[in-house]
Structures are given as structure tokens and as C-alpha cells.
């Protein structure tokens, strides 16, 4: 009983420290390599209070878009603005990106988290570390070298490292692809929890069930263009574009 109360109190604190909003504005965003145009002039506005899922067939340009939004790639042309500002270091520090394949330092689980904590001025490090380990079920693995963890444990650690800095925007690129159900569940729970605390979440997933469970709105991308952008329920119930219908029906799209 006592524990339940304390957890509630804990959540209260998190809600109080809810990040200030960071709306996204994308205008005419184009990205091309030497011979291929991957994104063909994208316009996108995302509000701060949604969990947005990017969907679309392989090669549609979802990952490239996510990287452009986070500044890991430079656009060929066009504009990415967060809260009306171009991507600066200060803005990027408020964001976190979890890659499909986790990249972890060759150190223990807690050392990986401490590395992230050491990058910012954070007063209550020990508490943060404990929270992050607990949120993703990593307490018993804290002293293990990150490199010997299972794929699911590694991805949980990558997510914990992203969350420990309390970003205002969390981006995830197929975070649960090829993971065991237990890890998938833990990761989805953690995503839901941060979403409830007011963090903007943008994630890519290929799993329709996961999208139905988590998404509040869906952006469907096909062949470098956004073909649909609407609330999740509307998207799943009445997909408008041919491509989205085919995709949801499980057909192969090129």
C-alpha cells in the first residue's frame, strides 16, 4: 500500500516537471544522395501533445526523415524548425534518438548511463540512475558489461540512456524490431510512461499492432512523400491513400 502511494507521488513529480512544448515545423524538406532523391519536398507540422508514428514501406524515407529532424543529416534543401527555431545544439540537447541497432559503450550498464549523465549538468545523478534502471527493468544488470547483454536488454539500455537526460522529444527508429516479447513490452511501457509525462514521441515502426497500441497519430510516407497524416484511429479505420491501404493489407509496396 505504502509502495503504491509512493509510486503515485513519484509520477506526480514527473508530471510537474513536464517539458515545455516543442512543436515541429517542416517545410519543403528534400534529401538526395548522388543519384537518388529520397525525400521529395516534405511539409509536416507536428503538435507537441501526440505520439506520432511514422509508417511506410521499406525505403520510403522514414529513417532519413527522423535523422533530418534530429540533425544527424543535413537536408539537401528545405527547413526543419522546432519551436520556430532552426536545429541548434541547445535544441538537439532537448532531444533523444534511439536507433534500431543500439550502439553502446564498451562499459557496464550503469557506466553507459553515467556517461550520458556526465554530458549535462545534472544535480541528482544517483536518483536519475536508479529511476532509469528501474523504468526498464535493468536493476539486476547494472554492473554487467553492456556488450554481453541480449539484444532486448541492449535496446532497453539504449532507451534508458535516451530517457535519463529527460528529453522533450523522444525519437525511436524501429526500437523493438527483432526483439523478444518481454523486452518489447518493457519498451512499450516505458514509451507510454514518458508520453504520459508530456514528452513528444516520434517513432518508426513496421509492426501494425504496435502502431495501433501506441499511436495517437500516424504519418504515412511512401516514395519520399507524405501521403497521409491523421489521427491513429482514423488512419487505421479509413486509410485514404492507395499505398496506405495496400500497406495495411500486408501487400508488398515498392
Amino acid at each position, binding site marked *: 500500500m505504502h509502495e503504491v502511494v509512493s509510486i503515485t507521488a513519484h509520477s506526480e513529480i514527473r508530471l510537474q516537471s513536464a517539458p515545455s512544448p516543442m512543436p515541429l515545423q517542416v517545410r519543403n524538406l528534400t534529401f538526395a544522395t548522388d543519384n537518388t532523391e529520397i525525400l521529395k519536398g516534405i511539409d509536416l507540422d507536428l503538435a507537441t501533445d501526440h505520439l506520432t508514428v511514422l509508417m511506410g514501406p521499406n525505403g520510403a524515407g522514414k529513417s532519413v526523415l527522423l535523422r533530418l529532424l534530429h540533425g544527424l543529416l543535413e537536408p539537401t534543401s528545405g527547413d526543419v524548425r522546432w519551436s520556430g527555431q532552426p536545429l541548434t545544439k541547445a535544441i538537439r540537447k532537448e532531444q533523444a534518438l534511439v536507433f534500431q541497432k543500439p550502439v553502446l559503450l564498451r562499459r*557496464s550498464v550503469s557506466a553507459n548511463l553515467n556517461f550520458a549523465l556526465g*554530458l549535462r549538468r545534472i544535480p541528482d545523478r544517483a536518483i536519475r540512475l536508479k529511476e532509469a534502471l528501474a523504468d526498464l527493468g535493468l536493476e539486476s544488470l547494472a554492473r554487467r558489461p553492456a556488450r*554481453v547483454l541480449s539484444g532486448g536488454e541492449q535496446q532497453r539500455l539504449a532507451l534508458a540512456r535516451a530517457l535519463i537526460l529527460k528529453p522533450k522529444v523522444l525519437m525511436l527508429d524501429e526500437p523493438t524490431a527483432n526483439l523478444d516479447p518481454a523486452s518489447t513490452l518493457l519498451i512499450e511501457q516505458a514509451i507510454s510512461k514518458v508520453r504520459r509525462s508530456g514528452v513528444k514521441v516520434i517513432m518508426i515502426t513496421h509492426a501494425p499492432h504496435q502502431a495501433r497500441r501506441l499511436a495517437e497519430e500516424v504519418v504515412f510516407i511512401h516514395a519520399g512523400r507524405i501521403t497521409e497524416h491523421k489521427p491513429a484511429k482514423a488512419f487505421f479505420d479509413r486509410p485514404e491513400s492507395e499505398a496506405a491501404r495496400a500497406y495495411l493489407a500486408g501487400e508488398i509496396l515498392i
Partner: protein
Amino acid sequence: MQDFAHSFTLAGELIVSGNEDLAEIIALSMRVTATALGISALIGLPFGAILAVSRFPGRGAITVLANALMGLPPVVVGLSVYMLLSNAGPLGPLQLLYTPTAMIIAQAVLITPIIIALTRQVIADLNAEYADTFHSLVVPWHTAVGALLWDARFSLITVLLAGFGRAVAEVGAVMIVGGNINHVTRMMTTAIALETSRGDLALALALGMVLLLIALAVNGAVAFLRGTERSAAHA
């Protein structure tokens, strides 16, 4: 073949006898090479890592230069350091020629490019894996360099061993700047050269075997330490 067998016996006798001169020579060899390696590591590890992660004009040229300098002939290094330290040279007033310090400088000059070039390669490979994550986390460049060096430490130990091997086996440079002075600058390699010129090939070969044993011992000790740290890290 008789010489070989004789040398083996001689090497064994030398080690067992606890010959004082030999102990002195080994101690000097180790002190000079360890110090030179320390200096080279202090310069080469950070410099090689910075070369691997940063982008600045002339970076490619410096990389090519470091790679090329790995093949620097020791005699050329010896001569250059001699000309610097000679009483007729710019650093003559320091009176360093024919001292262990001169040999340390020569060995450090010889192996620093090796440490730089190999470190750059090791760190560049690791950075290819880490770069996006570091960029995403907004890691300052000096923190990134430190983290890469630390995470590559097992590979970098091999880099340092390569430098150690080159330095400890080197004779041309230390002969010129050290002078092979008995009890002052006589090292394993210069002693081997001296015994060879005296025609005492068996003794020279025996000393060579002792040197090989030392190199084996150093490598073995490092492998052991590395093994225990690894297993501790993986426990």
C-alpha cells in the same frame, strides 16, 4: 647449428648466473624503452585520436605523413637527434648527447609516428560505430576522444606493444646518440652489435635470445593483465 646450440646454453648460463653487467644492461634497456614509450603514448594516443575524429585542413596530409614516418629508418632518426643534441647543434648546451636521455628522445621520435598512425586507425574504426550516437547525445569533442580512447583500450594496448617492440629492438639510433658507452648507455641491442663486431657470435646470439625472452615476458604480462581485466569487466 652448433652456434645455435652453444648460444642456447650460453643464454641459459647468462640468465642463471645473474650476471651483474647483463642485469644493468637489461635494466637500462627497459628504463629507456619504457620512458620513450610513455612519452610517445602521451603524445601519440590523444593526437592519433584527435586525427581520427576531427576534420581540419591538412588532416589527410598529416595522416599520410604519420603513416609514412612509421617506416622511418632508425639510423636517420639517430642522425637527426645527434645533430640536434651535438655540441655543434642547437640543443648542445643541454649536454644530453651520449646519455640515456638522448636514447629516450631518439626512441620516442622513432615510435611516436607508429603510435599516432595505429591509434588513428583504431579510433577511426571505433568512431565509425559511435559517431551517430555521440552526435545525437551532443557529446563535446574532447569527451568523445576520451571515451573512444577508453573504449578502445584493449586494441590500444596492442598498439603500445607494437611501439615497445620497435623501440626495444632498435639499434641504429641509440648507437649513434647513446654511443654504446659501457655502464652508461650500453643496451641490449648495442651490446649485441658490439659482440657481433668482436666476432663473438655465440654471445651475441645469446644476448639476442635474452632480449627475445624479455619481449616475451612483457607481452605475456600484458596479455595476463588484459585477460584479468577483461574477465573482471565481464564478470
